[in-house]
């Protein structure tokens, strides 16, 4: 991996970690476990638009592992991993379907699958069917937060990315074309 691309990806990982840190400092307004803003998905969306699937996967795994080591218990690592991987898969597929347009639809699909993945693994681990009662609330919050996240990613892509990287080709190849 070229140095410039590696540095940029590391910067995105740091950004995702910072966003996650700030977001976890917000007290939960709604007392349903699993409801969160999911702002770190903004980074995942921006990466999906500009980099390949493998690069996004690396950044996602690094972000989940580091945030779990810094903040969470071992169990939350499993939840985050499941949610994050489902989210990435769904966002990649939706992005391919939509040919890169309508980022907010991609982000909503990612948020929904993130919550579904977390709920599913919570059901598998705790074996309490009562956790499934959270399903409609999580879906609603996923749609709303996914929309917000998608809008953020859209504006970041439009205004911030040209400032970060010199040109579009500069990003992928790492500056040695």
């Amino acid at each position, binding site marked *: 991996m070229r140095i410039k691309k590696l540095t940029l990806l590391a910067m995105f990982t740091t950004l995702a970690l910072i966003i996650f840190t700030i977001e976890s400092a917000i007290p939960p307004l709604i007392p349903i476990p699993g409801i969160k803003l999911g702002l770190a998905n903004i980074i995942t969306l921006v990466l999906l638009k500009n980099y390949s699937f493998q690069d996004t996967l690396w950044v996602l795994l690094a972000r989940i592992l580091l945030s779990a080591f810094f903040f969470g218990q071992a169990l*939350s690592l499993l939840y985050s991993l499941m949610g994050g991987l489902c989210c990435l898969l769904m966002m990649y597929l939706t992005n391919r379907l939509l040919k890169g347009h309508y980022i907010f639809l991609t982000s909503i699909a990612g948020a929904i699958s993130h919550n579904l993945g977390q709920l599913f693994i919570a059901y598998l681990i705790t074996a309490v069917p009562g956790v499934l*009662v959270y399903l*409609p609330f999580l879906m*609603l919050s996923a749609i709303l937060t996914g929309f917000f996240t998608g809008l953020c990613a859209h504006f970041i892509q439009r205004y911030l990315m040209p400032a970060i990287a010199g040109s579009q080709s500069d990003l992928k190849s790492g500056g040695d074309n």
Partner: protein
Amino acid sequence: MKKFAAYQKTAFVIGILLILIFLSCMAWIIFPKPHSDGLTADIYQDGKLLQSINLSAVAEPYTFTVQGENGGTNTIEVRPGSIAVISADCPDKICVHQGFISTSLLPITCLPNHLVIQIRESATDKETATEPALDMISY
């Protein structure tokens, strides 16, 4: 009719799907499935079970008062299928503001008076009845 590209049609389909999910979730929340039998409310004071009320067997609403150790009181109203703390002498009145509960999702707690009201849907098993459904919440 202008020509829509393939991705726009896909986006339209996804949008319709999302609207359907949204509406069905709203319907699920606003119209809860009534649990006709097997609703029991356990009232705990200082961790000890004071009484268990079978909410499905309640015919008429009634109220009673629970005394705490420090002289704190909570007035509890029981209705068919739901229970609530309608007045308390704690400073925050969080228990009063919670209103009526009819599911085991969230218990009513009055921390200054060490009072917990937990609904148990005893349709499943009686052995784990004293354990709450969730015992860890992580974000």
